[in-house]
């Protein structure tokens, strides 16, 4: 088995973590490679208590409890999970449905590495969440679509599933409840777009991973044409503590419309990078400075991407923003996947922007014209600016392109490319102008070198 034995050097905790103020619901035992087995999960982390409770309830009551918890999807969109579940059609006398639960474990958003930690240290928490969610929606099959590169985690998850099966938590008639569930793990093939839920469904069906036209939404017509709910790993894993403690109790965490805790992933020029499980609504600067120790380079922090690479960047004046879905949105960005990327003042924002746009141009599925052609064109323009061949009109050209891409595509990838582009261009325009006018980098002072093919 390729289950990892070499410990990682990620940071999973901070002072005060695990207290009532900063409860540890998602990262129990994180960092300890021997934490994953079922026995540990049950003996040390109240494992499967939520499942036992849920199976005693009516499925509808489970959905209600999750609604009460107020939990919003941790994959990026922040949609209330309980509400999403309630969209699944119920059986009627005339029509019985086959329903599916699909777990999005295709964690590919740059700067995001929380699902990976849950899979590494608490796979049973995910499985427990799957059982609760599938029971609530009366789905008898659950697919976990997992990022292909997570090879060792796939084996670990499958080993955990086997343990759960052996214990009677999966399979036929779970704990005498009459409810059956099978969890199938499907490995992705390395496309960012397959993290988009309908592209994921296509990929799961063996088709080319490209987003579908919506409506129909997955709850009406999802995988194999059947009603489907797709949730992120962290969302589903959170369902286990929600059921265990009760939705009302969970809802007391965080802020009224942004309840619970979420796992923030800190990376970049930060002294203590790692995973920070925090109640929603903690201000960004508190996380950066008080918890994570500020800049790692001693230089001033110039910009922060607050919610994964798709989120527009924050500059200094937005650093006080409370980190919840609504506040981050009101500040012009999005809480997204919880990936917080810190850039210090030595970072060339032109280069950063090119990196980001290159990613989207590469990962565009190619289906929608504006995204496929537009991202590609933007990359080309940024490339020439970065390499000293920018033209004065390029900045207007870039600015004119984003409205033709954002909101003009089937999925959010076009928006995801344009958000950072627009925000960087707006907040750091002087750096681009400097590149174009002086043919040098404003930050490093280096002369910009033209590359072959940069036209």
């Amino acid at each position, binding site marked *: 088995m390729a289950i990892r034995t070499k410990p990682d050097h990620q940071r999973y905790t901070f002072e005060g973590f695990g207290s009532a103020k900063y409860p540890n619901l998602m990262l129990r035992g994180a960092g300890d490679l021997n934490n994953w087995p079922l026995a540990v999960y049950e003996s040390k982390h109240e494992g499967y208590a939520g499942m036992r409770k849920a199976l005693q309830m009516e499925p509808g009551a489970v959905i209600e409890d999750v609604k009460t918890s107020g939990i919003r999807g941790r994959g990026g969109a922040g949609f209330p999970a309980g509400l999403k579940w309630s969209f699944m059609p119920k059986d009627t006398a005339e029509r019985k449905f086959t329903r599916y639960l699909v777990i999005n474990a295709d964690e590919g958003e740059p700067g995001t590495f929380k699902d990976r930690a849950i899979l590494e240290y608490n796979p049973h928490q995910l499985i427990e969440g799957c059982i609760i969610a599938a029971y609530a929606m009366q789905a008898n099959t659950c697919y976990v679509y997992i990022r292909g590169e997570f090879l060792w985690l796939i084996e670990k998850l499958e080993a955990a599933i086997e343990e759960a099966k052996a214990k009677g938590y999966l399979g036929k008639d779970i704990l005498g409840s009459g409810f059956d569930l099978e969890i199938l793990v499907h490995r992705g093939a390395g*496309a960012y*777009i397959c993290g988009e839920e309908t592209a994921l469904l296509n990929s799961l069906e063996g088709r*080319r991973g*490209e987003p579908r*036209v919506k409506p129909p939404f997955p709850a009406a017509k999802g995988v194999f044409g059947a009603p489907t709910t797709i949730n992120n790993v962290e969302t589903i894993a959170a369902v286990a503590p929600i059921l265990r403690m009760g939705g009302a109790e969970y809802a007391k965490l965080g802020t009224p419309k942004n309840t619970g805790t979420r796992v923030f992933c800190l990376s970049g020029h930060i002294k203590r990078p790692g995973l920070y499980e925090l109640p929603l609504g903690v201000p960004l600067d508190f996380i950066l400075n008080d918890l994570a120790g500020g800049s790692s380079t001693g230089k001033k922090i110039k910009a922060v991407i607050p919610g994964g690479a798709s989120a527009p960047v924050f500059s200094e004046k937005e650093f006080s923003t409370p980190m919840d879905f609504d506040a981050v949105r009101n500040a012009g960005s999005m809480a997204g996947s919880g990936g917080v990327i810190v850039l210090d003042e030595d970072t060339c924002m032109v280069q950063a922007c090119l990196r980001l746009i290159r990613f989207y*141009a*590469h*990962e*565009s*599925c*190619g*289906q*929608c*014209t*504006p995204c*496929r*052609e*537009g*991202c*590609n*064109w933007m*990359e080309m323009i940024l490339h020439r600016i970065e390499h000293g061949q920018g033209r004065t009109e390029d900045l207007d050209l870039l600015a*004119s*392109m984003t*409205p*033709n891409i954002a*909101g*003009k*595509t*089937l999925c959010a990838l076009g928006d995801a490319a344009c958000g950072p582009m627009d925000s960087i261009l707006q907040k750091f325009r002087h750096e681009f102008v400097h590149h174009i006018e002086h043919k040098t980098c404003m930050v490093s002072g280096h002369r910009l070198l033209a590359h072959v093919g940069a036209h």
Partner: protein
Amino acid sequence: MARLLINDLPFHATEGMSLLDAARAAGLDVPSLCHDRRLDAASACRLCEVEVKGQERPLCACATPATEGMEVRTHTPELEAYRRGVLEMLARNYPADAPAQIPEAPFHRLLARYGVEPTGHRDPAKADGTHPYMQVDLSQCIDCYRCVHICAEVQGQFVWKVLERGGRTRVEATGGSLLQSECVSCGACADTCPTGAIVDRSRLELGPAAAWTRTVCPYCGTGCEMQVGVAGDRIVAVKPALDSPVNHGHLCVKGRYGTGFVDAEDRVLHPMVRRDGEWVRVSWDEALDAAVDLLRRVKATHGPEAIGVLGSSRATNEEGFLAQKLARLALGTGNVDCCARVCHAPSAAGLGLALGTGAATNSFADIEKAGSLLVFGANPTENHPIVGTRIKQRALRGVPLVVVDPRRTELARMATVHLALKPGTNMPLLLALAHVIVHEGLEDKAFIEARTVDFEAFAQSLDAWPPERAAEVCGVTADDIRAAARIYATAKPSYMCHGLGVTEHIQGTETVTGLAHLAMLTGNLGVEGGGVNPLRGQNNVQGTAQMGCEPKRMTGYQPMDKALAAHEARWGAKLPGPGLDVLQMVDAARDGHFKALVAIGYDVFLSNPDAAASEAALGNLEGLVVVDLFMNETARAFGTVFLPACSSFEKEGTFMNGDRRVQRVRAAVKPRGEARSDQDILCALGARLGFAEAFTYAGPSEVWDEIRGLWSAVAGISYARLEEGGLQWPCPSEAHPGTAVLHTDAFPVGPRAAFRPQAWNPSSEFPDARWPLQLNTGRSLFHFNAATMTDRTDNALLQPTDRLDVHPDDALAHGLADGDPVKVESRHGTFTMKTHITDQVRPGDLWCTFHSKGIFVNRATGQGRDPVTHTPEYKVTAVTISKV
């Protein structure tokens, strides 16, 4: 119905309309590149974005349903600027010279409309010129994926694929080049491509069409409607009619590209007579006189029964009608037939006997309504490709499919159950299917009680055929028989269609009766999505037989005793009684009682079985008048007068397709050379035979009106109504909408249809020690029957010759390698063709097409005939093979 405001004007949208449909119906040219009405909304090019009041962002019109109260703006300055921006993105790398080449391509028109100039270049590596009909240059690809979607969603072939992503996204044919791919050359991709990246070669070589004519395909009995594009009196393009209920905007390789025969170099363009063994060009008067002289002379010396007329199932209904009128009225002979004799006569007879109407009970549209599909002895993806793709699309979407075919055809590969039975064992299989249904209690008791009689005796006859016994005889498993029976009896409604694998046996009529029994047993009659549906072979074989080119039937396939008086009254003459069918005519000629034949568009010599027997018989004729486009094998060997006919692209009239639909045929080009329509030729012959008045018509519509007067089922179908689209008979009055499903309340035979006990009478052509292998013949996608038409098109490049399918075991036993010439010998004769080793056939079975006249497969087929209709047993011939 939804009321909305589009650009401030009220619009009433019908159910299911998208905003794009609505805007376009309102006359607004909302641009789109990825949309095609044949496909699901793709919402990918994003040009059709429109503003909807209350929506934060513009919406993609093609994917947004038009709903009550919407206020939509389609051409605001912002939207137009955005559209221009998107076109600029696409134009950046688009070949600058492309728009001038095909200015009418939708993308090029948009570039011109928005004033966007492409600035890219062609990449020679992206061009693919391998296909005879389609030119590919993916430098012109704008990644709209329409080719990918249409190949998957309409044809179901999955040739075009999208590879890579982001800026490297590209569309490519699987298999390298289009010719090497699994492409079936339907041309749907070229038809939908908005740029010319995939384009018909004819567009590049012959230029654009100046005018379009809507007509019906001249090939199979599906009856697809097409638009024929003409420039300078030449056919330069064929496109599917997008709104046709038959083909839903799709065509196959034959319909779309098989028009080259119209202007083939060897088309006979002037009348000829044979003098001293040589064909000599003569005037029409001379030729018609020669024909009439022959017919008069034979009639005077041998009597009218020594003369026969073969109507053409390629010709129109009106011409079929005139052919029988010529025979019965002008020549006084009952000897009139058509090629339905050698294909679906058992379907007409079997269904006529069992249910009362000798035609498909349901419509092609029922394929989409069926809960399960049973394809019995038919290979529709090759022989009725549009029906085939419709079945295939259903199977791809999970509808259970049962295929009964000795060969592993394309549909068999997709089937839920494939019963690969031994050729000639249809009856035992059918009886075993019925056995399972009855013994498992799956029959529709209510239907049997209310709509049938004599069930008990039939049920008893099934006792002889438990699935285990049939399994042994048929060479399939009893479990598969059970599985198939359960699907057919329970996943209802069950649509059944059958082909020549049912009829071209000595048990043809019996087997069709068995199919009818199966439908009666399960209540699959008189319901949408069910029925017994023969897939008629030729474009108008249903029609020509229905028009009375049948020795025992008159107009409307009415029995002679019922219809003779009406015909005599209408035509004011005493008419002959039943006559000989084509096989009996050939027999009579062999015996010296039959002396003159008029063969209209029917290559008897090449098509009939046992060519040696035909040869001896036809040689006895005093004369043979051929009406055709080409010097076919019958004319070449035995013809004495040749009257050059028009193709269906050169005349007006109607065809009747396999779901009883009468559709208008329209002239797209002028008659070639001195060619005349069959109607003109038959009327000229009738007039010269002394029936000038009876053979004078202002046009085909007058002939049709005479037909309406003699056959009440089409009384309501007028030419004026046909302008609006085809109509399915029965359609007894002008107010009647036509009939999609027969037998909903009762049967023409009465309120109840009768079961009768059935048994199996095996063929004498089963293999034995001397003749150990079994030859089966059929048709292929790229050719049509005797290939008179398709061999004169580039289809000949797609499939150059017939090949003998041999199972690897048999190939090994006979020391045959792929491509080896092999001699096939039967009791009746021999032919030689190339070996094609494939496990599509069963061990012990051989299969080949009969398209190549040079090979002449019918030299080896035998004399077996269905006792009711005399349809030859083409499907079972005991043979031996040897390496040449």
